[in-house]
């Protein structure tokens, strides 16, 4: 699974002394088109050479690397972004969270990086970055299964979580 592999790669990066600089560069990269900020390339390209990804897939790796840096590498398996957003909504009791979430679901390729950065900035605590990468890689599937699952995680809360994860791995 590319998500796990990439997460290991990022975790390894984080355990090095160089992480402080890498974190700053990757965070900065979020202001550019994914994969379009040369200083970030040394941290991501070596991994991509192994997988040989290009196009949207390449951008997704850069995006996740940037978001990982934004959260300073706080990873927790199973805590998806949709779920974290739901928790944020519960905590703050505001409708604007939901509006942002719906906008995120409808995001196209031009908007996705910006909206994701906003969303990740909103939530507290760690996220499942491996799952996030998996989801982004399939984001533009015409069947939009990922978005449907996110919606279920957001609106269906607790009980759908387990099944949703199982389904995500299957499709």
């Amino acid at each position, binding site marked *: 699974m590319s998500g796990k592999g990439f997460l290991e790669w990022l975790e390894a990066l984080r355990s090095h002394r160089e992480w402080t600089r890498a974190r700053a560069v990757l965070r900065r990269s979020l202001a550019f088109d994914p994969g379009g900020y040369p200083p970030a390339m040394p941290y991501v390209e070596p991994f991509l050479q192994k997988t040989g990804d290009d196009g949207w897939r390449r951008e997704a790796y850069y995006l996740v690397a940037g978001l990982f840096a934004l959260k300073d590498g706080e990873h927790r398996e199973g805590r998806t972004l949709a779920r974290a957003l739901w928790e944020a909504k519960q905590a703050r009791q505001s409708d604007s969270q939901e509006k942002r979430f719906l906008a995120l679901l409808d995001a196209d390729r031009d908007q996705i990086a910006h909206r994701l950065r906003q969303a990740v900035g909103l939530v507290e605590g760690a996220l499942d970055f491996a799952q996030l990468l998996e989801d982004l890689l399939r984001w533009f599937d015409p069947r*939009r299964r990922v978005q449907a699952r996110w919606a279920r995680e957001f*609106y269906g809360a607790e009980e759908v979580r387990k099944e949703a994860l199982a389904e995500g791995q299957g499709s």
Partner: protein
Amino acid sequence: MAKFNLIEEPWIPVLRNGRVEEVGIREALVNAHTITRIETPFPLEEAALHRLLLAVLYRALPPVRDKYEALALWERGEFDRESIEGYLERYRDRFYLFHEATPFLQIPDLPQEDLLPWSKLLPQLANGNNPTLFDHTVDKDPPLASYPEVARALLVHQAFAPGGLLRRLGVTSAKDAPLARPAAFLAMGTDLFQTLVLNLVPQEDPGVPIWERKPLRTQDVKGYAIRWPLSGVGVVYVWPSRGVLLVDEGQGVRWMGYGPGVEPQEVAWRDPMVAYRKDNRGAIFPLRLSMERSFWRDFGAMLPAAGGAWPAVLRHAGELEEEGAAFTLRVLGQVSDQAKILDIRREVYPIPKGLVTPKGELLLQRALQLAEDAAKGLRGVAWRVAQGVLGSRDASELQNFANSLPLLSLYWAQLDLDFTDFLSRLHQEGILDLWRNRILKAAQRAWEETRRFVGTEARHLRALAESERAFRGVVAELREKEVKG
């Protein structure tokens, strides 16, 4: 001039030795054991032809009074040639399609003005305000019908004509023919002989069929002058619902005289081929076919536990089955809206051993209940989806949207396929659990399709995600249901 005798002339389409041929009444009965079945693409014709043959048998054979006599007949393997030939010979004159005094199932002195095209006899032909189902015949220039064709059409019409506006011979509105609304049940054996015995339900008094009665005249039906009680298989199976007089053109029929028939007097008599159910107020109604649903979903209504009654043919066939006979069930009939025919149906079901027993009934009832309960849950889910997508609108708008979802139609379509299999395995251990799994699968598949159908914009996904909980509730409830048979 007497012409085209239905006893001898070929007009009943049958399957024999793998080929379709036409035979007369005598051949169909005397050699019924050599004939596989009546073979016609038209379900109503199938029902009407069987009823005619049965009506003849009820009078020609020594009466079959109970299951043991039926069994003895079954074991004989064929009908008694002498009884049948003797009987038919006696009433030979009454079976001519064209006859000056006694044309079969017609009225000889019907006025010859204002003729109608013969195609009015058949609901499957387009005419009047019938929707065009199978055909594009127009009223002005009716095609020439062959004698066999028009004979069959006449029989179908007398059995199935829906009541409605008539305005002829002092009658403004005609009454329903006996099978205009109810669905007709036919038990089918492996050959025509078996089929007829399976449906030859013991009758105390079969009544006097039309060919043994005084020929009808126009004055009898004018203003519905005479009424006959709607009772007795011999009478009702070949009932003169309308006054008809076919006009012979030498090689066929194009036109006919038309008017009211004998007015049926409703009496407490139950047609052996019809299933009855009780409504909320305790009134008894025949079971009908419906446009939206396959007939099996209504099987529950005729179960005795629900206050209904199996059609007598099914009970009778079930008794023979205990002794080793095997049969399938055909449900034949039309779907009508007042005088308009919307659809014509033939549904075929296997009848497993022991269906017509308390245990079989209980299993069937539970199974149908499970399917209906799940459907009710799904309706709730569809409603939630509608609310989610449309927000707060008025109820009818939401309902329309909910109805437009494929959820329920797909669910039932899948169960339509599964039900036959379920029924044929009714006696198996754990069949209800198997059926429940089928229901779950049907529901899940329908829900998947519905999700795809609704759309993938964020607001759709939100509505679906919210409805998903309701759907899971339905599934969970179904899983937990106690289904011990």
